[in-house]
């Protein structure tokens, strides 16, 4: 009598080495390609405000103007490029021409310790380019937790 041998079940064992290689590949890919997008904004210490609110700015053609605090004076930076006020007026006029059909809006991100003179110059430059929207960016502060000066 032939007795059939019971076939030994072969267990599939997962070969881990290629999987680890793939995981590391993916890891390195995502580490190197992830960019933390904040293209237009510079590092600026914003002033505090209790009445500021978050707003939807997507309906406007926005220009973010940063004024960084450089040794007590303001430095105007738009898209990582420094500007003087006349250059800024020209730049804003060009942007306004190309923004057909959309309202132009200036979003100002001025450092809290910048002298008013520099902010006023940017305001005048924007007015000369006939831009009407003027938004001042601040850090939102809750009324009851008001800090940072009286």
């Amino acid at each position, binding site marked *: 009598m032939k007795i059939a041998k019971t076939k030994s079940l072969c267990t599939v064992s997962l070969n881990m080495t290629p999987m680890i290689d793939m995981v590391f590949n993916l890891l390195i890919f995502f580490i190197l390609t992830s960019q933390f997008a904040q293209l237009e904004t510079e590092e600026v210490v914003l002033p505090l405000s209790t009445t500021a609110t978050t707003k939807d700015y997507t309906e406007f053609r926005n220009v973010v103007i940063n004024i960084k605090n450089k040794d007590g004076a303001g430095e105007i930076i738009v898209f990582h490029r420094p500007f003087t006020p006349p250059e800024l007026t020209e730049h804003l006029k060009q942007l306004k021409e190309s923004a057909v059909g959309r309202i132009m809006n200036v979003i100002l991100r001025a450092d809290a310790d910048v002298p008013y003179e520099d902010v006023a110059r940017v305001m005048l430059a924007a007015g000369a380019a006939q831009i009407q*929207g003027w938004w001042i960016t601040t850090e939102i502060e809750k009324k009851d937790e008001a800090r*940072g000066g009286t």
Partner: protein
Amino acid sequence: MKFKKPAEPAKMQPPMTPMIDCVFNLLIFFILTPSFALSEGFLTTNLPTSSGPVPGEKQLTEVRLKIELFNVGRSGEQEDDGKNEFVSIIFNETQNLGSNFAALRSALEDKRSQGVAATTPILISPTMGCRHKWVVRAFDAAVAARFTNIQFAVPYQ
């Protein structure tokens, strides 16, 4: 007769050590990389159109409340070091409020309760060296007192 023992299936446990290493790598990456973005808010205003007043042009209005901001040193007076990072508020050309913006807000609210209209122009007139944060605080006080027409004085060109 020889009975063969059925061959025991080869057991292999997937090695867990490298998998744990990978998981910890990913965990550390995702813990360290995100940063909390502070919530930025906006104070929305409009600049006057070209048909409006130009800098240097005197604008005559019937009633206007003026908030003057002077940059001063710690003593409350202008100091020679050029820093002058504190502020002195003069409201309506008469009231000296020191650096107290809460008092400024109260003074503005008092004006409202006395019947001054919300559309009355408020002129914020900082000195050129006054810090931006004090100007924003004065603007805040005017908005909190529910005034709608707030103007900034600009330097002569």
